[in-house]
Each structure stands twice: as C-alpha cells, then as structure tokens.
C-alpha cells in the first residue's frame, strides 16, 4: 500500500479499534464482578490446608517428637515424670500416659506451617486446623500455651518426684549395703 493509502488506512483502522474496544468494555461493564467481598464472604479453604496448629493436650504423652521435628524450633515442651501412685489416664489410642506435660508452648509467629510436627505424633494430638485469621496486636500474644497445669501443680509434681527419687535411691543404697543371701538370677528391677 502506498504511503498515501496507508495514511487513510491507519486513521480508519484506529477509529475502528476504538469502537471495537469500547464495545468490549461495555460488555464487561454489565458483567458480574469477580470480587469476593472478603470479611463478609469467605472462600472455602481446602480440607488438608495447613493453617494454625492445635494441640489436644489430653492426648499428649510428652514424647517431644514434634519439638524435635520442627525446623524453626517453635515448640517448647517441658515434662515431669509422674510417680507410680498417680494415674494420669489413657490417651485416645489407649496407651498409658506417664509424663506430666508442664509446658507446651508453640510460638505461632515462628511457625512456618510446614506440618512436619503433625506426622511424628504417636497420638495425633497436634493437628493443623483451618483457622487463618489470628492476628494479634502484641506479638507476645502469639505464643500459644497448651499445657493446663497450674504453677502449684507443677511444683507439687516436681516435689513428689524428688521425694520418690530420694526414696528409691535410699532403698537402693540399703539394698547394696546390707548383706544379701545369694539368689538365683533375677530380672533387673523395673525402672520406675
């Protein structure tokens, strides 16, 4: 096309594109918007999505597996042995609980939501829920404590443990000091 012809072609072509463009925008003007108005309408999140952690402390046996699995060390667990006269109950998997869990803190601000703590748990007490709206104004409020022992209970349990340990040590010492008639091979005494 000559330069003269292309001049006119350009003009009419550009006018045509303007009109075509306006037709498209008009169509979009009357289409439904795709916005989801968030706080009033929430999208469903996937069933296996990894969001805030939850610990069912009644099932926790204090094995420390989740704390060891955590890549960012956000779980802090402290346990205390219980004495044989205390019955701590059974977990949901019908195993006996033997440890008091005196501290179970998860710093959810550090948590990277990888889910690596969920798999090692023998009783499946630590799970990822579907809660994703848990902002706080103070970051210290993001340290979640799941243990439910009061300070008095903890000191009491530790005291009982000390007493029991002392008793056992005394018994052992007495058994070692006193002359004992030779006995046939016995199995090792059970660890208390």
């Amino acid at each position, binding site marked *: 096309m000559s330069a003269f012809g292309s001049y006119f072609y350009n*003009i009419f072509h550009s006018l045509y594109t303007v009109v075509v*463009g*306006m037709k498209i*925008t008009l169509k*979009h*003007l009357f289409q439904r918007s795709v916005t989801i*108005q968030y706080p009033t309408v929430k999208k469903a999140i996937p069933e296996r999505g990894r969001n805030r952690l939850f610990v069912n402390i009644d099932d926790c046996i204090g094995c420390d597996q989740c704390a060891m699995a955590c890549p960012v060390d956000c779980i802090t667990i402290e346990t205390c042995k219980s004495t044989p006269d205390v019955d701590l109950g059974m977990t949901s998997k019908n195993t006996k609980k033997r440890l008091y869990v005196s501290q179970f803190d998860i710093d959810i601000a550090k948590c990277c939501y990888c889910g690596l703590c969920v798999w090692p748990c023998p009783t499946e007490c630590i799970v990822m829920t579907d809660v994703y709206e848990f902002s706080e104004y103070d970051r210290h409020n993001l340290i979640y404590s799941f243990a439910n022992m009061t300070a008095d209970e903890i000191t009491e349990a530790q005291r009982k443990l000390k007493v029991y340990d002392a008793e056992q040590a005394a018994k052992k010492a007495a058994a070692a000091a006193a002359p004992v008639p030779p006995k046939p091979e016995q199995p090792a005494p059970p660890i208390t």
Partner: protein
Amino acid sequence: MDIHSLLQAVQGFLTNEIVLAVILSSLPLIFVLIYVLFVLYTEMKLAGHIQDRVAYMRTGWHGVLQNIADMVKLLLKEDIVPDKADKLFFRLAPYVTFAGSYAAYAVLPFSSIYIGANINLGLFFLVASGSLVVIGILMAGWSSDNKWSMLGGVRSAAQMISYELPTSLAIVIIAMITGSLNLQEIVKFQDGGIQNWLVFGGSLPLQQKLFLLPFTIITFVIFLVSSNAEINRTPFDLPEAESELVQGYFTEYSGLRFAMFYLTEYTNLFTVFAVAVSMFLGGWSSPFGSFMSGPVWGIFWFVVKTYVMVVVQIWVRWTLPRVRVDQLMYVSWKVLTPWLLFCLFAVGFILVI
C-alpha cells in the same frame, strides 16, 4: 430592632450589586464542588465494573462516602515543599491552574437566563484561559526540583499547545456556521429540537444541512479527541503517566495542593465537555423541541448532556492504552489539523453557495 427593618436590611444587602455579583459568580463554584463528588464516584464505579471488579463497598453504602473520605485525607496530609524547589512558583502553581480552568465557567451557558458573563468573545476567552492552565502546569513541573516532574510538565505543555490548534479550528468552523463566538448565541441558534443541533448541521435550510452534515460530524469527533488531549486524559495522559513518571508534573505535591490539581482535572473535564455540548449538542435546549424546555429545564439538559459525555469519556479512558509522545504529535499535526482545515474549506464553500 424589629423584624421589618431586619428584613429590609437583608433585602438591601442581597440586592446590593457587589454582593449579588459575588453570589451569582460563586454559583458555578458550588456546582463544581458538588459535581466533582458525583463524577469521582461515577468514575471509580465505572472503572471498577469495566475491569470486572467492584470498587469501594465499605465507606458508606457501596462507597458513596469514599470521595469525602479522600478529600478529608488530602486535607489532613502534611504539606511538604521540597527544599530546593522554587518556593514561590511551587506554591502558586496549583492556584494558577485552577484559576485558569475555573475562569472558563464564566462563559458557560448553563441556561437561557444564567450565564456568568455574556461576552461576545466567549469561545476566544475559553481558549485563552486554557492556556493559563498550560502555564500553571509548566510552573508546577519546573519548580519541583525533580527531573521527572519537569519532563512531565514540558510534555504536557507541548501536548496542550499542539492540541489547541484542532480545538481552535473546530471553534472557527462553528463560528462560521453560527456567525458568532458568543456561546449563548450559539446555543440559541440550536434551539428547537434535536434536528437543529449543530452536530447535525444546525438550523439551516435542509439542502445546506445535508451537505454540511458529514463535515460537522467530523468536526465533532475531532473536537472530542482534541479536547481529551487538552485535559490530559487517557489515552493522552502522558504528563501524568502513572507508570512512567509517578505522577508526572505533580509528583512533589501533597495534601491540599494535590487536591487542587485533582480538582482542576475534573473541573477541566466538565468545561471541555460543556463547551462541546454547547457548540454541537444544543447546550441547554431540549432535544424534543418545546416539550420539557424552559429556563430551569435548561440547566437540567445542560448538566445531563455534559454528564453523558463525561461518562462516555470515562468509558474511553478505561478502554484505550496510552499513546506515545511521537504518536501524540503525529495525531495532532498530521491527522486532526489537516482534516479540520479541509472541513473548514468545505464548510466555508457550502455556506457561501
């Protein structure tokens, strides 16, 4: 002091010439301020729905209070004047720009009984006050100590000056057909119904009108395009190209000064489309002839027609991408001006024969 003498004093005060002049001349200002709220809301909602999204649902019902919130925010912002900026011009620029665009309201015929200043050179005055806007923008761009603002200001000046030519030529064509530069006369020429509108040839004998029709339609389209460029709206918004120059010539402005520029943009928008409506689409006259016409209906028709044109412009804005600066100059000098010159000769020829 009894009620009678109080009423007399109030009446005397209101009919005092100076007071009356001040009140009547501030009516367009009140109109502008109210109109800006409406057009800002329209623009944001139209922009949103064209882009398949909703815009602002939370401030007020469906966002009606958003503009007021924006204005309040702009008022409360810190007023920063850059250290190395030319302080006098930096402070003066928004007001010069707004004065230039607001001065045009003096000659807009809102109705058959209300026109701010019925001067015989109305259209000429409009073009001249548009140039004042150019000065304001140059001042703003140059005095902010910022390379990109300067670029934006200079680009804007080049754009506005080169698009004043097609605008003025279109005005000359209209002046030839109607024989006057007075906007009130031009609108009166188109009174009587939609067939008398200048875009369809004006109230001339039918033969002449048929010949004039293609040329007036071309003139109308060219006038719309060049007035879009005059007011720096997309697709011609190089001076405020948001992705390139941050905000162009008003990058360094904040708070109330920015609000003045923003106000100027929407004031200008109304002005150029009001001029287009007055010149081509019949101004305040009703398209049905004598049905729904009268002095008060005049204001209604004027505002409605301009508003429809503004909505069309917003629609175009959210359709088209920006033109390059060389394409901009090409369009102005090599397309719009030659076609208008051709129309000028053709219209002159038809009117003479």
